[in-house]
């Protein structure tokens, strides 16, 4: 339905719409490159045309211009383009680093690609298919994965793209600036209906977005949603208040898989305390030092042995959850662990030894 609206609202154009802060950054680098291109095309074209006409066979031109020394000329057209390209490199790289580093306060949304659709899971469990609703003026971090082959999440109006890989989390972030409905494409060829793996990103004003959220919640409640209401209330973006892991407020997956048995802050040291883990740099038993990001949490759930915290022996007593947990539950668990802030006890427990105090 939105696709049709989208199709009608767009006419012929030579410049893509821009609807995010990243779009402006990328466009600037693009324009600089366009300027560089024009400069060289005009320079080379003018030289070729000038020489081509002047020295054409039959033209009575003076052809005995002295041959200048080669080396200075060669060095000119080696060094000058080199400097220009290096400037562009540094610029492009700095924009790329910005676009690769989500702000700490970014709202996380989980996106799963599968042949041939995008499944979106908002914090709190709300789901969409081939649509993504986001508010303006808020940093949104998309955590991507795939159920089958490689897909690529691409929103031209935001000038961003990231591959969604099976068995791995990747991420991208953006900050939408203009309300509207924008194309969402799969950019990585993924099989028969790759061309139809299209959707739309709906950017709304914060007020509209709040309204939309409310609608969704009402709909879900009237549908008789299976998940507890506490969780919806609790796991919103502002809900990350200091607290212990309380089974009554944790998502169903946390209960279903029995995580609490070992990972509750007040139990024995069977497993490390998860509070405040996310985003920290932790030291592992084999001496490696890693940042506990979404991918780290995901992999630790599926392959507990790949990273054992220092102080917990050499092999994990935790079983693998590979094959038992689906992408939705995984997103739920990861989001839940992220929402746990340090609860005071973490400081005294050497569970996840930080590298820096």
């Amino acid at each position, binding site marked *: 339905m939105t696709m049709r609206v989208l199709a009608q609202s767009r006419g012929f154009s030579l410049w893509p719409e821009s609807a995010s802060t990243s779009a402006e950054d990328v466009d600037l680098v693009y324009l600089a490159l366009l300027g560089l291109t024009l400069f060289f095309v005009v320079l080379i074209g003018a030289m070729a045309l000038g020489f081509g006409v002047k020295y054409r066979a039959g033209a009575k031109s003076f052809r005995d211009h002295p041959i200048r020394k080669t080396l200075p000329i060669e060095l000119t057209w080696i060094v000058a383009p080199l400097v220009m390209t290096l400037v562009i490199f540094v610029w492009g790289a700095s924009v790329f680093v910005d676009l690769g580093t989500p702000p700490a306060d970014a709202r996380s949304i989980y996106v799963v690609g599968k042949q041939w659709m995008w499944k979106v899971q908002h914090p709190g469990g709300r789901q969409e298919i081939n649509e993504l609703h986001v508010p303006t003026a808020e940093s949104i971090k998309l955590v991507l994965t795939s159920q089958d082959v490689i897909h690529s999440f691409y929103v031209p109006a935001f000038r961003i793209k990231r591959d969604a890989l099976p068995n791995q989390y990747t991420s991208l972030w953006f900050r939408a600036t203009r309300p509207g409905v924008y194309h969402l494409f799969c950019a990585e060829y993924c099989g028969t209906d790759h061309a139809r793996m299209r959707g739309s990103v709906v950017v709304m004003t914060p007020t509209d977005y709040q309204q939309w959220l409310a609608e969704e919640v009402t709909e879900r409640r009237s549908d008789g949603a299976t998940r507890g209401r506490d969780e919806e209330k609790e796991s919103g973006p502002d809900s990350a208040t200091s607290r212990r892991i309380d089974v009554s407020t944790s998502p169903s997956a946390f209960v279903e898989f029995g995580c609490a048995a070992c990972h509750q802050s007040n139990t024995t040291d069977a497993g490390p305390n998860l509070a405040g883990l996310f985003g920290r740099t932790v030291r592992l038993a*084999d001496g490696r030092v890693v940042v506990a990001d979404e991918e780290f949490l995901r992999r630790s759930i599926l392959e507990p042995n790949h990273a054992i915290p220092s102080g917990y022996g050499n092999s994990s007593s935790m079983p693998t959850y590979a094959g038992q947990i689906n992408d939705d539950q995984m997103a739920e668990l990861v989001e839940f662990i992220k929402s746990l802030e340090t609860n005071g006890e973490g400081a005294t427990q050497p569970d996840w030894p930080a590298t820096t105090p």
Partner: protein
Amino acid sequence: MADTPLAHQFDDVAQQREAAGLGMWTFLATEVLFFGGLFTVYTVYRVKDSAAFVEACHELYMWLGAINTVVLLTSSWTMALGVHAAQHGERRRAVSFLVRTAVLGLVFLLIKGTEYSLDIRERLVPGPGFRAEWTVDPTHAQLFFVLYFVMTGLHAVHMLAGIGVVSAMAFMVWKSRSSTHHANALEMAGLYWHFVDIVWIFLFPLLYLVA
């Protein structure tokens, strides 16, 4: 080596010999990158999934690998002596060393075959029948064995080709009137044989000694 036949495109024997040598080394460079792709795959997974690889490596018969290394190193020695003999006109000696080289190559394959059959018996062949009991992680243990079989298998194919070439050379040197007639070709065959030996020199520690 005045009696080396000269192909029409060359001016003299020296040029032909230089071309053959360079050609062989170019070929070996491509072989380095052919195996190099596999070494890269192995190294990346070794670094990523080290615990599983260490556990899987313990299942290999290190002593069989070590014995096989001795066999191959010896065969390289006899090959070098065979080439040396041919270049110095000692035809019978050359043939005898070539035969020894080929036999050592066969011994290597025999030991390798024995090892494969032990691996099969212990359900270490990747696929549906792969052993399930691993403490670290069966998926990556299986990945180790995929690479083990592909790398040693590709090496074994090269060994087979080498044995064929060395046997053929032995036959030709035996039949020819002058041993130096084939010295150039024999030197090329030797380069190939030693290269296959070098591949094993790296495969042995990578696969058997990663622990």
